[in-house]
């Protein structure tokens, strides 16, 4: 009886661990043909961190990395700003369906990408401190205005090793690059 209890506990742990391995924080529209997306516009990211250049830094890094894949052409940020001005987009961080459609037809973009930087900077826990980034991002298709892909990522922060031994924290640019690479992997998986 005791063996059966142990076995069922083990199975329960294994099942819960297997659940952790899934693609958490990613949504792909199953009906969407991502191969049809050749040109995207990355709209200015929002930041819940207040002032500073956090949103600009992450957006610029994401633009560069996405362009560097060679799979998708990214419209220059100056042209995106021009398009936002012409279409009269009220909030580029959260555009309406109509605004997205209008913008995409003007800029000849297949989709737009919006994003929010939720955390960017140092976090402290007792004597340990580290840099941390948390970003969520979504792709909205230009013809229908539907969200076809969404992902979020968190990198950095204080680990058990940091707490125990201190130091070892990575610089912000390295963490940002890792977060951006993770997002791009999630887009192409």
């Amino acid at each position, binding site marked *: 009886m005791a063996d059966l209890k142990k076995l069922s506990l083990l199975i329960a742990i294994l099942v819960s661990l297997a659940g952790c391995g899934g693609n958490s924080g990613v949504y792909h529209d199953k009906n969407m043909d991502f191969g049809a997306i050749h040109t995207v516009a990355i709209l*200015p990211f929002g930041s819940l961190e207040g002032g500073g*250049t956090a949103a*600009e*830094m992450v957006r*610029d*890094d994401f*633009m*560069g*990395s996405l*362009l*560097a894949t*060679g799979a998708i*052409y*990214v419209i*220059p*940020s*100056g*042209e*995106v*700003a*021009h398009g936002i*001005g012409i279409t009269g987009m009220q909030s580029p961080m959260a555009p309406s369906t109509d605004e997205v459609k209008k913008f995409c037809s003007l800029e000849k973009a297949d989709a737009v990408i919006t994003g929010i930087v939720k955390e960017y900077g140092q976090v402290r826990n007792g004597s340990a401190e580290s840099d941390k980034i948390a970003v969520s991002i979504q792709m909205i298709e230009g013809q229908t205005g539907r969200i076809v892909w969404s992902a979020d990522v968190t990198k950095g922060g204080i680990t058990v090793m940091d707490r125990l031994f201190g130091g070892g924290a990575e*610089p912000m*640019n390295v963490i940002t*690059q890792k977060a951006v690479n993770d997002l791009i992997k999630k887009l192409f998986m």
Partner: protein
Amino acid sequence: MTLSKNFSCKPVSFLFFIPLLASFFFVQGCATSRTVAPISRADGKDMTIAVMPVQNLSGVDAPLNRIRRIILENLRRQGFHLVPDSVLDDTMAKHRIRYVGGISMEMAGIFKKEAGADAVLATSLELYDGTHYPPKVALFSRLVAAGGPRPKILWMDSVAMSGDDSPGLLETGLVYNPYVLVGKAVKRLALSLCNALAGVKTSKPGVTMAGRFKPDDLFVSPIWDPARKYKVLVIPFYNVSDRRNAGQIMQMHFTEQLLRHPENFEVLEPGLIRHEFLNIRIIQWDGISIENAKLLFALLDADLIVTGKVLEYRDTGDPLVAVNVIAIERKSRQIVWSSTEYSSGSDDVYFFDTGKISTAHTIASEMARWVVEDMIKRN
């Protein structure tokens, strides 16, 4: 204990000191050989140069007149013909010329006809810190031909120096006086100008471990043709950093590096670009739009626009530069080159500050050099 028996003290012959003294004086002689030798008039010295007031891109108060006087002294010492200050002041006042960071077509004509200048020397001060130790200074300078259908850049160079760059033996090489540092920087620029006019090709010393300036992200479009000679407009970068004028500073860095490869790029004078920006009222909002890029291509007859965004440009503490560079091609109206880079002065420095960079100028300059050299190499 017989410690002394292990150490025998032999009398040293006086002859031993002779080669030592000789080598000491020889090394002293090396230092003086670095002074600039006067160059004959055939080496461009018959040219009359108008030395413009120094443009301040440092974002702080700086002794611009004193820096200009140091420039004038150095050029006179080299035997250059300079337009007298009274003539230059009168010409500038008469035509209400206030912008001193570049030469427009109109300005070039005025300087040629009214001041009798063959070329104009435009100098920009990027960094000046004379209140803290070590003092720091960074300068850009370029010589622009005043005649011809369009002002052409004849020479451009830059220099950045910090008082503790070369501490030397027993720290005798430390510089505490900012004007001494300005003098050294200007002397180096004057030497570079002399060499350029004499046709002597010199390569600027680079930073060791140049691989550390490799961009984090790099995109090269299949449209990019490294074999082609591009006519390039380097427009001010869009600045989102806290550093004032960082966009113009990056424009200078790329202009300088592109000019080092005349066989691959023809670079337009920044003063001409500024003039067109004002003429067609271009205001950059998050960078250049394609519509404005098309106008600039047509008006200035260029093939490529190099621009980007400055995210960080920090000189205090550990210097830091984060920049995104894009190149937009005329025919396709698309980005054909993009690179993003983030670099600090202490990157890849592990032992005794070896390889540490003390100014953002040097980091930005090396970043620009890496991008431009990679643009040429890529195939």
